[in-house]
């Protein structure tokens, strides 16, 4: 890795960012989501935190432009230069510009905004280019075959931590997870068993938790290898053999379901008043358990899957929406079987049934990939 000459860096750990304008290629919330995810990549491995502002000055101003856009570094039309950014400092410094003559996409059919934004924001934080072809800060755009496998290289982590150090160890921001992983052995599920299926899956502060029996795998963007832990070492009051789990990201809460009960967890803390009965959410008495759940952060709704149907819960109103349940396949074409686990990442939904998983694009409203369930565990 390299840093800019003179090693400019931010002298504070809380930074503001502002999205000045939007590309016509994507819905605004897709741009918001890509930028937020790109900042999370660096937030995870440093003490840095970011908050968005929609007016006035900001440390990092993000904009889309074509050709000459007032900084003496004109863009060059489609292809070649995708974007550029300036090292930490006042005014234009710290800003990131994206060439709107590119076709910005959520996936890799065009130029993936999340990947390029994560790279350019690395510059905004003080990283220069890396000669490591596997590094995010390598100057040439490497189309990732599978966005879901994106993670920072050790070179990227070493570079940014040479500027800002490691993330604080306090638990208020990071889930406190026991340091030692559980060694695989008899009685523990094997990550690369081709028949492996999951009880429940949830994101948690940018990581993904895959629950199975008494254990869970914890997958982070910063490491290729997932950690493997006992549920009880993380959440002692929870049962094993869970049914469903989802993260309500705007509240930083993970909801965990088993049978006709559910719990609310913030990091490792069980929220007061839980467990509650699932019927307090508005399910009819005929529903005895949930199979899977996933939170739609753009619409602030949660989808609950039970057998071949699904319900939609309005997280803002805290009530089940009328007109449900509906057949799953009606609104998720191609998802024809029961869903026994689900989560959202990079703007896609991942639906699991037994040992296989469907990647579903909610905008195209179609299944875009069929994968093995354990494809996330670096098998």
């Amino acid at each position: 890795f390299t840093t800019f000459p003179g090693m400019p860096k931010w002298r504070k750990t809380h930074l503001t960012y502002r999205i000045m304008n939007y590309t016509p290629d994507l819905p605004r919330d897709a741009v918001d989501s890509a930028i937020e995810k790109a900042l999370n990549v660096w937030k995870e491995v440093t003490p840095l935190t970011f908050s968005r502002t929609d007016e006035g000055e900001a440390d990092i101003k993000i904009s889309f432009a074509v050709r000459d856009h007032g900084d003496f570094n004109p863009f060059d039309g489609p292809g070649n230069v995708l974007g550029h950014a300036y090292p930490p400092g006042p005014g234009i410094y710290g800003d990131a510009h994206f060439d709107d003559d590119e076709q910005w996409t959520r996936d890799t059919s065009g130029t993936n905004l999340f990947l390029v934004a994560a790279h350019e924001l690395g510059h905004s934080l003080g990283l220069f280019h890396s000669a490591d072809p596997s590094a995010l800060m390598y100057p040439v755009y490497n189309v990732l075959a599978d966005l879901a496998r994106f993670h920072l290289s050790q070179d990227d982590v070493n570079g940014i931590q040479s500027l800002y150090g490691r993330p604080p160890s306090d638990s208020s921001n990071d889930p406190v997870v026991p340091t030692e992983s559980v060694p695989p052995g008899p009685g523990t599920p094997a990550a690369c068993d081709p028949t492996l299926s999951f009880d429940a899956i949830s994101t948690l502060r940018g990581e993904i938790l895959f629950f199975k029996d008494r254990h869970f795998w914890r997958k982070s963007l910063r490491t290729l290898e997932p950690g493997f832990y006992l549920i009880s070492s993380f959440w002692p009051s929870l049962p094993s053999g869970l049914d469903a789990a989802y993260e309500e990201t705007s509240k930083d809460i993970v909801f965990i379901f088993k049978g006709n009960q559910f719990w609310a967890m913030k990091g490792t803390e069980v929220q007061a008043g839980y467990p509650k009965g699932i019927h307090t959410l508005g399910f009819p008495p005929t529903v005895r358990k949930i199979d899977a759940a996933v939170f739609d952060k753009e619409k602030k709704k949660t989808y609950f899957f039970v057998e071949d149907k699904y319900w939609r819960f309005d997280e803002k109103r805290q009530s089940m929406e009328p007109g449900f349940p509906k057949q799953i396949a009606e609104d998720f074409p191609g998802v024809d079987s029961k869903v026994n686990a689900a989560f959202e990442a990079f703007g896609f939904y991942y639906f699991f049934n037994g040992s296989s998983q469907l990647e579903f694009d909610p905008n195209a409203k179609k299944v875009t990939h069929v994968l093995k369930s354990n494809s996330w565990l670096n098998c």
Partner: protein
Amino acid sequence: YPVDRAAGDENNSMELIQQYLENYYNLGKDVKPFVRRRDSGPVVEKIREMQKFLGLEVTGKVDSDTLEMMRRPRCGVPDVGD
């Protein structure tokens, strides 16, 4: 005369190389146009530097791999220099 296609392509490539080295490897804009047959000089040095940084075979010559790399989409921030 009909434009000699090879010469035309060659000119384009030389322009691409000169531009790339100026943009990303701090090649001075006043450096004489790229002379292909020379085995040394500032342009050849910059080609070596670029090949090394991007993980290509360091030959100092603009082979097809090097040209192909120069045509790939990338970040507009330079790779070296201030």
